[in-house]
């Protein structure tokens, strides 16, 4: 097994430029290609501990973030390619790294329907997973990053993937996306945070990604049973609280946060029912990360089940 960080710098650079860099990420293999310095820097910083797949293994997602031709170079533009097609408009080279990560998210969000997929950060303590769905800006990534820096394992910053009929969460650990104030919040929270390149003036503002695979089990591909579903919400003005939610409300809210609940029809309903029946559901309103992490550490039932 060869890790990306074991490649000599020249070899890494050459393989990335030529699109011969298949990385094992959760249950998938992404083949990456780029001729852009920020992308190479980000991948080198954030994916160093990921395994390089064998050349004859099936590639699930072939993605590239490249600057092609004289015009694109002159304009400082780059394009995201998926299986050699361009599903998006060109983007400024300065935003390339963030766009690569978003494109990699898009691959899973759009194409993978063997799982019930929720837009959720997913973390674990011991052998039990906690699913944290949330709309963009709810504070789930910031909390996910803080938990990852506090002994929790990050299973995903973006997708909770649940095989229908089970309560298991399939890990697909990739860097955590931090935006605007959250970047400094996490830097202040822990000096151990490893951040990739800054992407400025994106449609989400300033974006940086944090290395997520710092737990000893980060690359363990086995799924973990979900124990809780927590809907985090950052609020500066409200009292911090962890409060139980009704399962029926949580079902509907989790379905709202799903990428493919509607597409799966009855299978989606049954999958969500199986999941919701097995987890305790909570609202977590927070503005202080230390408080939020301590509250998560003391999650009712988690200690007993470790």
């Amino acid at each position, binding site marked *: 097994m060869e890790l990306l960080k074991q490649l000599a710098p020249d070899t890494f650079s050459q393989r990335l430029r030529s699109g011969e860099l298949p990385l094992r990420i959760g249950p998938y293999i992404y083949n990456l290609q780029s001729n852009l310095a920020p992308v190479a820097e980000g991948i080198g910083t954030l994916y160093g501990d990921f395994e390089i797949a064998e050349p004859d293994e099936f590639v699930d997602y072939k993605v590239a973030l490249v600057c092609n031709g004289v015009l694109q170079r002159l304009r400082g533009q780059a394009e995201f390619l998926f299986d050699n097609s361009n599903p998006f408009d060109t983007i400024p080279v300065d935003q390339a790294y963030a766009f690569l990560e978003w494109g990699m998210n898009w691959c899973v969000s759009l194409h993978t329907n063997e799982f019930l997929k929720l837009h959720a950060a997913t973390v674990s303590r011991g052998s039990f997973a906690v699913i944290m769905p949330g709309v963009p800006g709810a504070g789930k990534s910031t909390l996910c990053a803080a938990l990852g820096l506090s002994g929790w394992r990050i299973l995903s910053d973006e997708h909770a993937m649940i095989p229908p009929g089970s309560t298991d969460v399939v890990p697909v650990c990739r860097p955590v996306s931090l935006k605007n104030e959250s970047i400094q919040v996490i830097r202040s929270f822990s000096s151990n945070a490893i951040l990739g390149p800054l992407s400025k003036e994106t449609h989400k503002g300033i974006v940086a990604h944090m290395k997520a695979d710092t737990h000893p089990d980060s690359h363990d591909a086995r799924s973990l049973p979900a124990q809780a579903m927590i809907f985090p919400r950052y609020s500066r003005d409200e009292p911090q609280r962890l409060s139980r939610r009704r*399962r*029926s409300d949580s*079902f*509907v809210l989790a379905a709202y946060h799903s990428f493919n609940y509607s597409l799966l*029809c*009855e299978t989606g*309903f049954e999958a969500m029912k199986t999941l919701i029946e097995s987890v305790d559901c909570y609202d977590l309103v927070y503005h202080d990360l230390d408080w939020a992490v301590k509250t998560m550490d003391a999650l009712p039932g988690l200690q007993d089940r470790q």
Partner: protein
Amino acid sequence: MMWRVHSQGRLYDAGEDTVVYFDPYSGDTHLLSDFAGYVMQQFDNRPLSTEDLVLRLSRAIDSADIPDLEEALTSVLEELVLLDILKQD
């Protein structure tokens, strides 16, 4: 007056005062009151009259819980029609 479902839906009842109802006809998922959920459970792919429903519900529901069952049922049936879960023949 007869009522029928577009298609037999699926219900998730966690024992709370609301239930989740999935309608395969539209693909929509609804959060219904437990009473509305109980009404939906009475349909088994066959039409029921208002009188059938009142009879079935009066056997199962304590009149102390819902004093005017017929009025409550009428209101729920209207709501279910608006949600396009039920149709009126």
